[in-house]
């Protein structure tokens, strides 16, 4: 990643988060509370935003975000930089916890689950104020524009909706297997467009 952070955007993540977040995580593993606070300040908008988007309920989202950061503190030593960036590790952990929360809540009260297709704004349309001007926002938006509409739709339901690929297939009236393929193809395109990963 060769971009520079926009100077004005104090809220956005460092544009080379792999290095700085990784260093902070390593310090967290040694019990450094100041570094943990810094890590929290740098990442909590993104983590909480994702959790809130998936979980929807603000009180539950708060609990999940709290769990995520406790898990980060506890398991920071298990982050292996050879396997990916610190940001990817963190967001993977946050997403999994958010999804676990909605699925266990669902199992408890299946009748509660309603899906409002119209209410789902697509992520490139819901760009948060403040982050809009950042280079990263533009990169993500440009990368998402590379996806076909159907890929984006399936990926958004899976990632932001927290639905399984079979649920996504049913929602979109697709044969089972098609949603899975669209999610994977969409992610591959996104990865390639953003120039991240392998």
């Amino acid at each position: 990643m060769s971009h520079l952070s926009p100077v004005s955007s104090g809220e956005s993540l460092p544009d080379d988060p792999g290095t700085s977040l990784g260093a902070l995580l390593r310090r967290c593993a040694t019990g450094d509370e100041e570094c943990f606070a810094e890590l929290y300040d740098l990442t909590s908008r993104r983590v909480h935003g994702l959790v809130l988007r998936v979980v929807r309920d603000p009180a539950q989202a708060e609990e999940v975000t709290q769990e995520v950061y406790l898990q980060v503190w506890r398991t920071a030593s298990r982050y292996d930089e050879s396997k990916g960036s610190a940001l990817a590790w963190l967001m993977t952990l946050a997403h999994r916890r958010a999804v676990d929360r909605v699925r266990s809540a669902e199992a408890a009260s299946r009748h509660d689950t309603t899906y409002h297709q119209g209410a789902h704004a697509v992520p490139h349309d819901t760009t948060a104020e403040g982050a809009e001007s950042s280079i990263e926002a533009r990169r993500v938006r440009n990368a998402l524009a590379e996806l076909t509409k159907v890929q984006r739709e399936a990926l958004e339901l899976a990632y932001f909706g927290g639905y399984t690929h079979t649920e996504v297939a049913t929602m979109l009236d697709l044969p089972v297997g098609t949603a899975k393929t669209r999610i994977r193809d969409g992610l591959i395109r996104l990865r390639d467009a953003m120039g991240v990963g392998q």
Partner: protein
Amino acid sequence: MSSGNAYEIHALSGAYAVDALDADEKVLFEQHLAACPACQAEVAGLREATASLAQSVEADPPPTLRDRVLADIRTVRPLPPEVESERPTKVRALPVRRRLTAFAVAAALLGVAGVGTVVWHENSTSDQGRTSAADRILRASDAKRVSLALDGGGSASVVRSVSAGRAVLITRGMPSAPTDKVYELWLQTPAGTMVPAGLMSGGSRTVVLDGDATNATAAGITVEPKGGSESPTTAPIALFDFERAT
């Protein structure tokens, strides 16, 4: 759960990267992932791409949350780093009995550590917290365990719950499979047939065995050519007799 061919399993990588597999598929894919470097690389790359997606939905958490989190961490000890792979694979220094005792204690700790109001679900040794399926089996009231010291070093334990219908293999310090080989897991039917139950590459892992373990009489591990075999081609390096499970 179908056993699925390699192509089908590989195609689950995208859904796995965004947590969009159901519980059974996830177990199946994670077993495959443990032995498939191509899928490991793909999942890692796709997760890098997803890490930026949430950039568009950022939201400030309530300010009080920061105080709570910072107060909470003072009561939680960070886990030590994993150092197992740095050790020689043969743990000859410890007598078998002591090794097994230490192992049993470690295994007993799995999945029961509660911290404050938060219950942790992740495996304490690997995979950054993906063992909820394994946890369910390990915590089942009818979970029974058979533990063995492995000849090549390390130890292994199989826990089977009849009510869950599944079995879990827990290894500690298991030497890596030889080049071009893989460890294949098996469930033995009452008729004595060995049914493939997944692949793994060794190390310290918690793996849910593929397939229904309700009526299985034993579980086994053999060394097989990469990709696995339909039936065992070598003598088992470990055989867990469920008759002896406690």
